[in-house]
């Protein structure tokens, strides 16, 4: 099982802040994960935007980065505090 976290506006897009699921066998990296999840939820490309970055186990990664069950994978829209 992988834990997926949805931050910022993606929390609204996905309708939840996080979920735990078993990755399909075809999903071995972040690029495949974006595509599969976007299609599975009918998001029309929202997860494919270049400005959405992924973090695997709390490290921001560049696509494609390996993912597997047991990983914590965060979907991060543009950040900014202050």
């Amino acid at each position: 099982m992988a834990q997926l976290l949805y931050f910022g506006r993606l929390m609204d897009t996905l309708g939840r802040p996080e979920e735990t699921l078993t990755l399909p066998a075809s999903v071995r990296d972040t690029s495949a994960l974006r595509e599969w999840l976007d299609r599975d939820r009918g998001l029309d490309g929202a997860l494919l935007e270049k400005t959405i970055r992924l973090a695997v186990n709390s490290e921001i990664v560049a696509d494609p980065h390996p993912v597997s069950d047991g990983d914590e994978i965060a979907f991060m829209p543009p950040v900014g505090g202050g």
Partner: protein
Amino acid sequence: MLRISNEPFDAGRELSAFEAEATGAGGIVSFTGLVRDHASSGAVRALTLQAYSPMTERGIETAMAEARERWPLMALKVIHRTGEMAPGEAIVFVAAASIHRRAAFEAADFLMDYLKTEAVFWKKEATATGEHWIEPRSQDYQDRARWAKV
């Protein structure tokens, strides 16, 4: 010193505490960011800040270490609120102490530019027309680019 917390804080009290720690400093610069009361979509009812711990803390600590490398600082402090805040409440407080004022000004300015564009937070503003996620303005990215090492 870094503190990320859902608890409200008082910028004046933080400045007094900081001054007491900054022994030998000639100048202290502080920045306090407040929840604005008006957005383009109307009066602001609330601002909600979301962090991703410990990534958020790690990033800010790295930026603070970079500031200490770039400028001779006697003390450095960052406080950042998370959770829901009302207009007028303090979101962020940055203070930098140094012997000369230019270093203190630049370090505080640098950290604010980092916090606005790279710190791992997401912001949602609630106004009369609903809730809106806010992302950095292009001006924020331009401000941040001033510190690029050449």
